[in-house]
Every structure is written in structure tokens, then in C-alpha cells.
């Protein structure tokens, strides 16, 4: 009957809105409390345009406009708000959510004020007006299916992978040359667009919009659907939306004491949310990580890598030069006029006591920290003051002391996400159904498998990164860096915590990488054996500057330096 059809239609609309929420919160990891604003923006846009501007039969145009305006709203909110994260972002979205009602109510001419806009036309496709409840349901369910497909493809695309990487660890993403801020903004806008689309459908279905419909109550409703179903799983949020919608309707039939029904509905709702958070906070359906099949034939990697014998001949030019770097943190001077050159084709090791400023040099050179003074050049290009992703994109990349792989991406995804993509990492345009993207994905997957095999991680390809042991994670970080294929590779204590068995593999990989044409490696190391084995050149740092340099044997034979390093005279081997 009409009532049931109406309920199902409204549920389908909410499903679409929650898809958008899932993109923002589940995929993008953004703590967003203003979701009803996007829904409302879309609804009002559809209402205003279809009443005043659009000709009859322009239903798709109305919905598209709704999505676009909601997306524009996301840009307006996101650009300033996404500069910071976590609770600050949540507060901005929350404040805007609360302000939405007041602003909309006050713009009488545009939005009809508190009384809203009525007589919104029914959905009309060309000459066909969709009026019957059954037809409307079919239409809306169709749109929900479309939304599901779109979101599903987006999640599984290289772009979706990139968003997840930024969600897991923004800094590591920047280290891999990805513009984290732009990625976050893009998923925010995409999610808002999907929700705005839902708002447009809502407007044409309800045929009325008013400010009271888009308040905090609606946000709480969406949140319950998101959390109940499992915010990291698209099917989960769909199931959550349907379940909650059905539950609301079922409550209408429950024998509650008259006069308090409205209150008790909300009480049961809130209680349900608390119960879910206690019992099963991850929701009904957990995150499902994608599986990647090994490409048939296990063929040769797409690029044949020339492996030349490791040589210690004369280097060909300076790959990276840092001059007079100064950095102070509060009262502590970490770097005090540090100057160093990294010669192309060589492996340079930086050694020195703790607090000498070694990691700070890396941070400055890769853009994660701004120098107080000094300059950095790669070839003729000055990098001082550049952002990390720009520097990484140029070809200077690093590993981190605290590893920083992406724990909720699979091992192979960690490698895939670090690669340079031409098309796949664009929102919408990077959907895997497009032919160009599929080809690119295939190529990259082949290369990734080859890399994993080289690093001995192929058996763990589909395991989440966070499930690996510490040493395996370091291996993965190295693999990821190799995938990025930078010209200058900076390794921050790469062998710390790695067991003896794996040590050999690490050294082998570093040597192989360095042996490639034009590649430069620099590592911070405390393990003198590794330094002796690998390094062509050693820089000794102390108190924020380079105090000595030379071949490893020379530096390590210097008693004075070793005394500084060890705190006492070295014991004869």
C-alpha cells in the first residue's frame, strides 16, 4: 500500500545520503558533523531551480544542480576548515550545521523563510511525470543503485586507495608525493555531491522543503545509520540505513504510552546508538579490503632494471646540496649552520650521536619542517620552503623513523598507492570502469607484484599493513619507496630493529637501488657494520653541523670522532 511504498522510498533516499557520508567519514576519515547541511543545500537547490528556473521535465538537471551546489558548499567550508583536522574540523562543521537553520530562515526571498518552499514539481522525465508511489519507488531505488555503483567504483579505484592512504597517514602520503590537502578536499566535495543529489531527490519526493528538516536531528539519524551498519563498508552503511529506517517505522506500531511517543522514539534512538557503541562499535559489517590477483604467468616486470655491479668510482655531480641550514625548536638549536652535499650515484651515510640533528636535516630537506635559515638545492632547482609533496614529486623521498606504512591498506595497496598515477588518482575520472584507468591499474599491479616478490612480501600481499611485524613493515616501507622511484632516497635508520636474517635483504635492496643510473641514496645509521658495508661516503654530524666527512674507513678510524659518538674512546676491535 501507499504507506509502505512511501516508507521504502524515503529509506532509499536516506541510503543515498548515507553513501555520501560514508565517503566522507569512512573512506576519507573526516570527522564531519554537518552532513544535513549538504542534504539541505541539495534539497533547496532542486526546489528553487525547479520552481523558478528549470523547464518541466528537467528532473536530471535539477538533481545534477543539487549535487553541484552541495559540492560547492563543501568547497566553501572545506578550504578553510581542512587546514586542520580532528576536533577542530568537527567543530566547524557542527557550527555551520547549527547556523544553517538560522541563515536559511532569514533568507526569505530565496528560501521561503521558516515556512519553506512548497509545490515543488514531481519528478518529470521528458513527458512522463512520475506520480504513482510504485513508479516513484522504482525510480528512487534505481537512483540508489546508481549511487551504490558509483561509490563502490570510487572506493575500489586508485583514487579511493589514495583517499584511504591519506586517511591512514597523511604525512606518509605527502612523503610519497601526494597532495593530502587536495585529496581530503576532493573526497569531502565528492561525498557532499552525492548527498546533495540525495537532497534533490528528497525535495522532488516530499515536494516541500523547510529549514526544520535539515537540523541536528537529521545528523544524528545519519550517524546512527552510519555507525550501525559499519562506517567503513559501503554495503554496511546501506544495510544500516535500511535497518534504521525500518526500525523507525516499526516503532510507530509499538504500544507506547500515549502523549510521550515522540519523546520515547528519540530515547530509543539514542539508546540504540549507545548500545551499538558499547557492543559493536565497528558496526554490522567490517571493512573489506580488496584482494589483488597475481597477474597471469608471473611475467617479467614492466620495466627491466639494469643491475650493475656496485662500484665505488667517482661520482657524477651533486644530486642534492644543503647550505647553512639552521633550525631552532623553542630554546633548542637543532641545526646550526649545517652544510652537506649528496653526490649523485653514491651512497652517503650520516652518523653521529643522538641530538646531532640528523633527522632534522631530513625533515628540512624533504619539506616537513621549514628551515629558519639556509637553502636547499636539487641541481639548479631551489627547494627551500617547498611543501613535502612537491619535493617528493620532484624526486626526493624518504622513509620515517616510525615507519608509517598505511596500516589499513593491504600490503600490495601500500605499494600501489605510492606509485605515480596518471589517471587513476583523479576523482570521478579515475573510476576503474574507464578503459585508460584499467590499463594503468593492470600495469601498476604487475609492477607492484614484482616489487613484492623482490622484497619477499608476496605471500602477505592481501594482508593489512598493520598486521605485519615491525621488520616486515620496514621492508614494506622500503618497497613503497622503491615504487615511488625517487632520484634521491633518504633512509632514516632503515635497519634499526631489523633482525639479522633480514638485514642482508635490506642491504641488497639498497645497493641495487643505488646501482641504478642517476640514483642517490643517503641513510642515517647507527649500525657501523651497515655503514661499512654500504656507504661510499660518510658524514659525521655533531651539535647541529657536519664536523667531518670522508670514506667510512677514514671516519671510523678517527679516535676523536668516535669518542664523541660513543662517549668514550673506542674499544679496540
Amino acid at each position, binding site marked *: 500500500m501507499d504507506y509502505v511504498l512511501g516508507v521504502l522510498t524515503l529509506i532509499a533516499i536516506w541510503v543515498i545520503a548515507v553513501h555520501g557520508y560514508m565517503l566522507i567519514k569512512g573512506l576519507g576519515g573526516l570527522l564531519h558533523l554537518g552532513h544535513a547541511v549538504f542534504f539541505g543545500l541539495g534539497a533547496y537547490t532542486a526546489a528553487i531551480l525547479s520552481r523558478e528556473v528549470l523547464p518541466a521535465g528537467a528532473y536530471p538537471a535539477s538533481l545534477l544542480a543539487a549535487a553541484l551546489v552541495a559540492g560547492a558548499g563543501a568547497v566553501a567550508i572545506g578550504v*578553510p576548515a581542512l587546514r586542520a583536522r580532528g576536533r577542530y574540523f568537527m567543530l566547524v562543521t557542527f557550527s555551520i550545521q547549527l547556523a544553517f537553520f538560522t541563515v536559511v530562515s*532569514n533568507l526569505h526571498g530565496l528560501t521561503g523563510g521558516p515556512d519553506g518552499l512548497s509545490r515543488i514539481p514531481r519528478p518529470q522525465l521528458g513527458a512522463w511525470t512520475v506520480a504513482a508511489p510504485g513508479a516513484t519507488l522504482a525510480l528512487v531505488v534505481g537512483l540508489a543503485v546508481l549511487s551504490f555503483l558509483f561509490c563502490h567504483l570510487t572506493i575500489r579505484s586508485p583514487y579511493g586507495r589514495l583517499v584511504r592512504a591519506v586517511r591512514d597517514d597523511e604525512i606518509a602520503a605527502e612523503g610519497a608525493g601526494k597532495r593530502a590537502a587536495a585529496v581530503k578536499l576532493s573526497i569531502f566535495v565528492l561525498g557532499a555531491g552525492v548527498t546533495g543529489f540525495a537532497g534533490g531527490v528528497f525535495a522532488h519526493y516530499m515536494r516541500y522543503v523547510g529549514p526544520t528538516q535539515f537540523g541536528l536531528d537529521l545528523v544524528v539519524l545519519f550517524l546512527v545509520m552510519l555507525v550501525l551498519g559499519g562506517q567503513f563498508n559501503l554495503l554496511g552503511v546501506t544495510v544500516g540505513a535500511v535497518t534504521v529506517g525500518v526500525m523507525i517505522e516499526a516503532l510507530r506500531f509499538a504500544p507506547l504510552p500515549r502523549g510521550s511517543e515522540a519523546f520515547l522514539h528519540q530515547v530509543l534512538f539514542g539508546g540504540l546508538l549507545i548500545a551499538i557503541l558499547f557492543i559493536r562499535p565497528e558496526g554490522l559489517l567490517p571493512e573489506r579490503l580488496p584482494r589483488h590477483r597475481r597477474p597471469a604467468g608471473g611475467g617479467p616486470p614492466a620495466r627491466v632494471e639494469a643491475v650493475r655491479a656496485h662500484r665505488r668510482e667517482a661520482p657524477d655531480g651533486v644530486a642534492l646540496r644543503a647550505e647553512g641550514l639552521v633550525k631552532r625548536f623553542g630554546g633548542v638549536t637543532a641545526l646550526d649552520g649545517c652544510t652537506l652535499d649528496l653526490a649523485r650515484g653514491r651512497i652517503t651515510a650520516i652518523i653521529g650521536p643522538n641530538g646531532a640533528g640528523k633527522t632534522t636535516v631530513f625533515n628540512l630537506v624533504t619539506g616537513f619542517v621549514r628551515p629558519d635559515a639556509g637553502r636547499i638545492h636539487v641541481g639548479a632547482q631551489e627547494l627551500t620552503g617547498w611543501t613535502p609533496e612537491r619535493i617528493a614529486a620532484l624526486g626526493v623521498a624518504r622513509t620515517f623513523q616510525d615507519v608509517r606504512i598505511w596500516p589499513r591498506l593491504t600490503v600490495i595497496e601500500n605499494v600501489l598507492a605510492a606509485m605515480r598515477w596518471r589517471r587513476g588518482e583523479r576523482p570521478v575520472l579515475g573510476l576503474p570502469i574507464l578503459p585508460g584507468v584499467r590499463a594503468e591499474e593492470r600495469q601498476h599491479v604487475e609492477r607492484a607484484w614484482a616489487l613484492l616478490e623482490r622484497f619477499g612480501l608476496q605471500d602477505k600481499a592481501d594482508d593489512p599493513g598493520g598486521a605485519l611485524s615491525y621488520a616486515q613493515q620496514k621492508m614494506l616501507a622500503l618497497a613503497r619507496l622503491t615504487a615511488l622511484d625517487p632520484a634521491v632516497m633518504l633512509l632514516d635508520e632503515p635497519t634499526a630493529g631489523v633482525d639479522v636474517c633480514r638485514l642482508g635483504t635490506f642491504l641488497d635492496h639498497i645497493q641495487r637501488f643505488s646501482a641504478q643510473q642517476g640514483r642517490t641514496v643517503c641513510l642515517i645509521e647507527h649500525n657501523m657494520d651497515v655503514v661499512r658495508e654500504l656507504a661510499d661516503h660518510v658524514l659525521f654530524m655533531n651539535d647541529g653541523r657536519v664536523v667531518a666527512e670522508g670514506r667510512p674507513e677514514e671516519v671510523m678510524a678517527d679516535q676523536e670522532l668516535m669518542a664523541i659518538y660513543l662517549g668514550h674512546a673506542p674499544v679496540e676491535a
Partner: protein
Amino acid sequence: MIAYFVNGIALGFSIGLLAFGLALIWRTAGMIDFSYGCVFLASAYAALGLHVLLGWPLWLAAPAAVGVGGLTGMGLYLGLYRHFLRRRAPLFVLVLLSLAAFTVTENGLGAMFTAQRFYLTHELLPGWTVLGVRLNAAHFSKIAIALVVLGALWLFFTRTRPGAAILAVADNRQLAEAVGVNVNHAYLWVFGIAGLIAGAAAVTTVIETGVDPFVGFVPVFLAFASIIVGGLRDLRGPLVGALVLGQAFHWAVWKIPASWQEVVAYTVVIGVLMVRPEGLFGGIQRFQGRT
């Protein structure tokens, strides 16, 4: 014109008192506690019940109601948040919990006591004229209590052991735990004190406006807004933020149509968020450090 200024100050202190408690929880537990309104409501209804139903005189019912606030705050912690704080639940979960708790409380009270607004007193409160504007006892008590709380909290944090423990936990919880600070007790203190503050704010507010299930929302939201505006570096931040908002609310009505009153307030809040997100005096962390 002076009237706007004076009234704005009165409103500012009213908001600011509540903001202290909220800031306390925010700084310590790291959570934005939307369920602070539950404590407010508990005290409000307690005051109503004790004074109107049981007939206690106001000078007895009021402190008792404030005590109820403290107990409610601790109860919320013990019953709800402790479970999640122990497991280091993400911020999202804590925020959702507090939102849900508030929804349940607000509507639960509505179901139990109906939505009718009950009043504690029908008389005009005694008052005095300041600069030509008559402020009543509620205003003065709020100002007095706010200043007392400010001073007392400062003493508490700098001179007592529980206070020091709370500061330690607020700064670096893991380290505090490792050093042997009893984190559970610290949180209990925090929620208890914040609860007392909410109780004081509630009683002094509802004596004027009356009690119904919906009185908890706007004061708490305004308290948030003042923290955002003023920052969290120390307790003066929220108070100054509150005073700024109080002025904004009142001066907004002076020249432009009063319907834009709320919009002006929101604009101040969002403006501060965009331009200086750490608050006018700083202290709200912008983002996690790099590397």
C-alpha cells in the same frame, strides 16, 4: 547604549561559567562533551523537585541541586565514558556517545515530566541597578560564582595534588599513567568539578527562565562557542570568549533587525574558527605535529 554593554556583560558571565566546566573536560579528557547538557538538566530538575515539590527553601535546595550536578557528572563518567576512555576510543566515538546521551536525557525528561515548563519562583528576583540597568540576583550570583570558580580552580590546579594529577593527565596521559598517576581518579575529579560548575550555572539560570527538557541545549552550545572564540590556553580564554559573545549578542540588536542576532553570534564563532582556529588566546591544538 550603556544598557547593551551592561546586559552583554551579564550574559557573558552567564555563558562563561558554564564554559569553564566544558573547557575542563575538553582539556583533560580531550573530548567535546555534548552531554554536558545532561548535567545541566539534572541540576535544573533537581532544583525544581527540591524547591517546588518538596518545599525546601531556596538557600537549601540550590546547593543541593549543585551537588546533584556533581554526582551526575561523575555518574556519566563512571557509567558511560570510562569504558571508552580506558580503551582509548577515537574522538568520533566519544562525541557520538555524548550526543546520544544528551538526546536520551532531553527526551527522557520530556517523557517523564512532559514538556511543560515549570518555574521555581513567580516573583521578581531582588536586584540592584548598575549604570542605569537593573540586574537581578541571578546575574550577580553568576558573576560572583564565575570569579570564585576561576580563582578556586587556579588554586586547585597549582596547589593541590589531585589538581597536579589532572594537569599531568591532560598533558600526556600515557606518561602520567606510566609514572603512577591514578588516571581514573583524575577523571573522576574532572567530571565531578565540571558537574558542580554546570549545576551552579543551571540553578542560577533556570531560576529566571524556568525548567523544561529543552533548557539544556542553548547554554551548552553558547559555552562551546565561547571556548572556540576565546581559546583553551588557560581558563581566562573561555571567559573572555563568553564576554565577547555576550557583547555580540546584545550589540547585534542595536542597529540591525533583531532577527539577525543569532547570525551575528555564529559569524563571530565561524570567523574565529577560520581565521584563528586556536582561539583568540590560543590553546586549541591546530593539528598534530609533523614527523
